[in-house]
């Protein structure tokens, strides 16, 4: 069986986690590549509907980081 390759949607706040992810990249830290990043201007922008839709369309997990 092929290895499980999960789809995780990550909603990242532009000012916090997205910048953190950017810094992690610049600092050459290794981290799993399962994330599909969506940049939002604030984690308050994330509507619960985005999350149910993500699951409906076949995502295995959702991460909201601010």
């Amino acid at each position: 069986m092929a290895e499980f390759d999960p789809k995780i949607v990550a909603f990242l706040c532009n000012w916090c986690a997205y910048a953190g992810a950017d810094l992690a990249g610049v600092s050459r830290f290794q981290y799993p590549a399962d994330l599909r990043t969506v940049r939002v201007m604030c984690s308050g922008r994330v509507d619960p509907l985005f999350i149910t839709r993500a699951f409906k369309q076949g995502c295995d997990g959702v991460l909201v980081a601010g």
Partner: protein
Amino acid sequence: MSGIGADRLHLAWVSSAEAQRFVEVVTDVSASIHEQGKLDPDRFSLQLAAAEDTLSGEPLRWMVGKEVQITTKGDVYGRQWDEASYESIMDRTLEKEYHKNLIVQAIKDGCQMPRDISARIGLDLQRVSFLLTDLEKARQVEFKGMEACKPVFAAL
């Protein structure tokens, strides 16, 4: 509540200076999802559709939008609400709306009698009958008549 598992949704606070923390969070989330395995959306299609209808429905949207106003200034009847009691009412509304939408989804899926609906979504029969009356009043379902002494419903 929809049964897909609360562990599939993660919430974390990472500041822009915390690259190391971001890496930790992503590693944890990824490991947790790997452990839980694949999510099959078809298995939860009724539940996810009901969750979506509930979250986009008017009652919940109104309650979230009015929360600050009602907990700080009171409601239109001049009653005061503290945050805890408001939240508990919001939770109850959420549960009720979700169950109602689940029933509608089950009817759309081909269940017609309360007993079938109850078996399909795993909600007890009394609750289903109670909520069907509610749905009928709101014109979301229609009573079609009796068939072999059992009530038959259709979605509108």
